[in-house]
């Protein structure tokens, strides 16, 4: 008998997916245009992001016995192949981009001279091990990583709160307002697009499934508040000029923590936080891609061959190809907004 996923574990997994790319490829790409008004960018983007979440909730609750693949096959009997291929390519690209990001992060802060190919292949082996165990392990592992995450964040807040200079948060309202609105729209779907991959779960497998809607909204609001607080801390400690220079400003504020002369030099330990983000994003997208490609191939015996071939393909692409921000933008848009809206419109048409 299959166990049901508990709601709290589902919430922690959504937390990790939303917060995953919000900082590095999220608001930091806009900081040269919007400067300190990035606070408003995050706030407006978070409010606008409630719309995609409403659509995802409707898609998951459409039929409790079906997950997204069966829904697509039911709603689009003719063009479902086309939609599945788009979904595979977009989530695959998101996976490769985040893998490249995390390998460069580890290369800078933890292992300084090693090749990124080596680092990313070891990371991918770990992700393959988790994906072979199914979605249930990832959902449960996210709760335990969440406890460690909360511990790290409390320590970092307590250690850096006296270094915040509120004058660094001024002047506000000096950037171009139209570009601010456009960038906040872009940020809204950048931060919510990984959630679409959670529709691989059937709603009947969730404990307390009637609370799905309120829980999704609650975790989204909680995560956005957390991202805003994190941004205010980094900006208040470092200042806007240093944020433009450093690629990973969050780690740089951890270098300044010094408690009682003992608790120093903790940035290597706190770097685990960023590894958690990428780990959950990559493993969920790998499961998404695997389920989709299994439904395309309709052959159950070649599981391991598929895994091995994806492993080699991901490493090849993430190491040898150069990714622009625009590729990430287009794949997020397709995965997070374009295809869910098509599915939603078809759902409304069919119900009438």
């Amino acid at each position, binding site marked *: 008998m299959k166990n049901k996923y508990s709601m709290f*574990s589902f919430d922690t997994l959504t937390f990790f997916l939303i917060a995953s790319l919000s900082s590095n490829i999220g608001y930091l790409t806009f900081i040269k245009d919007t400067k300190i008004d990035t606070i408003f960018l995050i706030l407006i983007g978070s409010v606008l992001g409630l719309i995609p979440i409403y659509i995802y909730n409707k898609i998951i609750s459409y039929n409790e016995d079906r997950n997204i693949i069966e829904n697509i096959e039911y709603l689009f009997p003719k063009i479902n192949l086309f939609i599945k291929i788009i979904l595979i390519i977009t989530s695959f690209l998101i996976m490769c981009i985040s893998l490249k990001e995390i390998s460069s992060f580890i290369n800078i802060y933890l292992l300084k001279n090693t090749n990124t190919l080596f680092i990313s292949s070891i990371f991918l082996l*770990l992700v393959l091990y988790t994906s072979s165990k199914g979605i249930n392990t990832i959902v449960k592992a996210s709760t*335990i990583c969440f*406890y460690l995450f909360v511990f790290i964040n409390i320590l970092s807040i307590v250690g850096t709160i006296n270094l915040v200079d509120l004058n660094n948060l001024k002047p506000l309202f000096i950037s171009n307002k139209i570009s601010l609105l456009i960038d906040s729209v872009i940020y809204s779907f950048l931060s919510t697009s990984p959630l679409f991959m959670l529709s691989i779960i059937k709603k009947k497998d969730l404990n307390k499934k009637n609370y799905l809607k309120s829980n999704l909204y609650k975790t989204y609001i909680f995560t956005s508040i957390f991202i805003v607080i994190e941004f205010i801390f980094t900006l208040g400690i470092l200042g806007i000029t240093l944020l433009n220079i450093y690629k990973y400003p969050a780690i740089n504020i951890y270098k300044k923590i010094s408690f009682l002369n003992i608790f120093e030099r903790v940035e290597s330990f706190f*770097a685990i936080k960023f590894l958690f983000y990428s780990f959950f994003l990559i493993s969920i997208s790998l499961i998404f891609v695997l389920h989709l490609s299994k439904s395309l191939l309709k052959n159950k015996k070649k599981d391991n061959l598929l895994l091995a071939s994806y492993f080699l393909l991901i490493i090849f692409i993430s190491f040898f190809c150069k990714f622009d921000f625009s590729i990430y933008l287009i794949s997020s848009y397709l995965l997070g907004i374009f295809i869910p809206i098509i599915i939603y419109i078809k759902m409304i048409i069919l119900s009438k």
Partner: protein
Amino acid sequence: MDKLIDEIKIKTGNSKDLIYKSIKINNKTIYLVFSEVLTSGEDINNFILKNISKIIDFKIDITNGLFEFFYNSIPSHNVSKVSNIDEILDKIFNGYVVFIEENNYFAMEMRASLDRGVSNVVNEISLRGPKDAFTENFNKNLGLLRRRIKCPSLFVKDLEIGKQTKTKVGIAYMNNICKIKNVDLILEKLSSINIDGIIDASYLKDYLSSPKNLFPTVVSTERVDVASQALLEGKIVIITDNSPYCLILPSFFIDFFHTPDDYYQKEISISFLRIIKLIAFLIACFLPAYYIAITTHNHDAISTNLLLNFISQRQNVPFPALVEALLMTISFEILKESDLRMSSTMGTAVSILGGLILGDALVSAGIVSPIMIIVVATSMISGLIFSSVDLTSAIRFYRIMLMILAASLGLYGIFIGGMFLIIHLVSLKTLEEDYLAPFSPLIEKEQRDAIIKTNSKVKYRNPLLTDKNKVKGRRK
């Protein structure tokens, strides 16, 4: 009747410890067949043979109904009828005396007690609390349990496992607390065992949990109070004949951090000790790997003075850090194992040798740095804080794996090893329940006893183990 006895002799290879006593009563012969080594001769003399000789002396006239007469009058507490030769042999080798009369047979229990009696606890010692332990006798074990739980809802189901050994295995559970589907699951698993023989209860562990798991999912204990506490929570206790250890299912990861002392001492001290046990678990797994990662890859994780200290100590050491650590762990393991197998008369000399060699001589010869001995000794001692042997061996495996990962990849390798540990633990299941139960699917009501023990007015049972009788007790 003679045919039957010949058949028995052929099937048992005419072994000398089977005794065939023939008694003549009123021109009819009856046979008593029993095994000399499994029955107590005193009881047979006093209860059976004396009564039979009385009957013969007083020349009571019994021509018909000899069988019924003996069946009703011989004093024995456990009498049952048997019908064919397989059952006869079964009863003989279980310590029964079989009474054969033409075509009617019955068996009386006259078992010898071949065990050592209820003795003290040897391995899991507690400061306060009862000290009686399980023995190798099935009936005595069950009696010790029933002495503590006098409720009639303590059900026991019997099984015979093992083709050659035919060991008796009992599954004990509280019918008004436990989930019945768990019992059915265990029965299904145990009845499908196809094995030669069960020598000890640990043979059953492989069938009750998957052998690929590194961490144990079954608790084996020799203390009676632990088993009765588990029964009251809704768990299932498996008692095996000839084994002083009983198995408790389902057991979660946090159960290995609980000692029987938890309910006999104050709550604050117990919470403190449990937190220390968690810290000891982390130290035992991660400390040598962390030290290796700091001194080889990530030198910026420690302060300048500590780094200079390490530099000065590693000046003369010819090996890299990983080889040093593996050398020390292997020698500590050898010392631990030889200490266990040695008789107590030679124990002191060996411990002095071990201390001299590992402590002084290695350091002054310049083979190992003193800080490495401190690190490895701390982690070994922290690993010994648990009473379960399976958990310490799992920790040993992880320690070595993490050391190798740390030597090749530094702190990133420790992250990979740690995530591997988390994912392995999360995916384990004990009897279809999640292994990291009060934490991973978060159960708030169980948190009051998982790590930090608190007091509440109403005590609830674990919802994963019970679905009825959910309230343990109330406080006014």
